[in-house]
């Protein structure tokens, strides 16, 4: 379990960042569910709950999700249920249980770039940007490629459009970590296929997405799925081997594309 010498609830994001960078072991806390499994010796635990970062808002062009929104907020948000075929609520609804999802936060989950993340895989299939206090705003894809830097993730912004998406996952049992997860989305024949929990972090299958966007008929489904499984790297851990993941990738990709095609 972690220990914390001090606890601070800054009133501004500037103050929060200043505390974060003023000592190496100062740490932002989200829901603390993941942190509590570590033995980190925290100097000052920085709680962002006074910064009003817990809302999910509809703006003109974007849906904005505050870093302190919980996964249960994502799951029950009417706004997110009514957009993108409900892909975000679907992606988080199998993570442990409701009592857990009432605690864990969006900002921590995205900032930590967990390989197994259900949420990141679904977000990456949408037109998603993240806002960091220091590094500013960038696409989620760029953010995932950057090396870790001390910063505070303040918001996730998703372009509000008619993109239809599907989220598929494979688990040994509901509420366990995913063995593999896949998201697919389509907007005017611009497809995005994402595979996560490989067990490495989610990545867009570029070649398969391009092939799908250029030309698609149902007869090509097997070929597209095979392309996605070939172009990405898979690894082995206690939940599954690389070969198993690669084989199952084809199945999940086909299911995801089929569901998107059925969206009105």
């Amino acid at each position, binding site marked *: 379990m972690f220990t914390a010498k001090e*606890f601070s609830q800054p009133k501004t994001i500037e103050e929060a960042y200043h505390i974060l960078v003023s000592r190496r072991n100062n740490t932002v806390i989200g829901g603390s*569910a993941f942190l*509590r499994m570590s033995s980190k010796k925290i100097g000052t635990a920085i709680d962002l709950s006074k910064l009003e970062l817990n809302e999910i808002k509809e703006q003109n062009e974007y849906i904005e999700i505050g870093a302190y929104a919980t996964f249960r907020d994502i799951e029950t948000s009417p706004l997110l249920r009514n957009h993108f075929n409900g892909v975000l609520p679907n992606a988080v609804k199998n993570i*442990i*249980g*409701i*009592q857990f999802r009432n605690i864990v936060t969006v900002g921590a989950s995205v900032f930590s770039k967990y390989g197994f993340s259900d949420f990141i895989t679904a977000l990456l299939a949408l037109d998603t940007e993240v806002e960091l206090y220091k590094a500013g705003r960038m696409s989620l894809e760029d953010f995932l490629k950057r090396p870790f830097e001390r910063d505070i993730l303040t918001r996730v912004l998703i372009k509000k459009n008619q993109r239809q998406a599907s989220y598929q996952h494979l688990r040994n049992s509901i*509420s366990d970590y995913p063995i593999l997860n896949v998201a697919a989305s389509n907007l005017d024949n611009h497809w995005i296929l994402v595979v996560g929990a490989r067990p490495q972090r989610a990545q867009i299958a570029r070649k398969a997405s391009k092939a799908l966007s250029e030309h698609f008929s149902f007869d090509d489904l097997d070929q597209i799925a095979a392309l996605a499984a070939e172009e990405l790297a898979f690894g082995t851990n206690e939940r599954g081997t690389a070969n198993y993941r690669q084989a199952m990738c084809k199945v999940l990709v086909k299911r995801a594309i089929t569901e998107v095609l059925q969206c009105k």
Partner: protein
Amino acid sequence: MQIEIILNGNKVTYDVKNDEFLADTLRAHGISSVRKGCNTTCCGLCTIWIDEKPVLSCAALSIRANGKRITTMEGLQKESEEFAQVLVAEGSEQCGFCSPGFIMTVIAMKRELKNPTEEEILHYLTGNLCRCTGYMGQLRAIKKYLGVM
């Protein structure tokens, strides 16, 4: 640091450490319905409500509860007795170790969902593990309790 919370309707003040979790704070103050099973956020046994929402007290920092309403089974005596009687009548409890967390979640569900389907009931309860019953008796009891046979 000192925190002031409304615990089961009563204002209380506790001294807590920066890295202390509510499950420990509440137990240290005699709230014995709150138990830890896994202590890794996986079993649901430690479920309490913060501002009416069910949360895992093994992962909720006490210091952040300052100013909030905390509810445990001690504060829901009438409702939990009512449900416990249905559990017993349906033969759905064995060792009973999982019951406090399970009961807190069922009562939260009763307040949150109107006429839930079997699928919704099962989904709401995925975070509560029971190592004895196999869940079928519990599902029967919940349906009876909610009147959604």
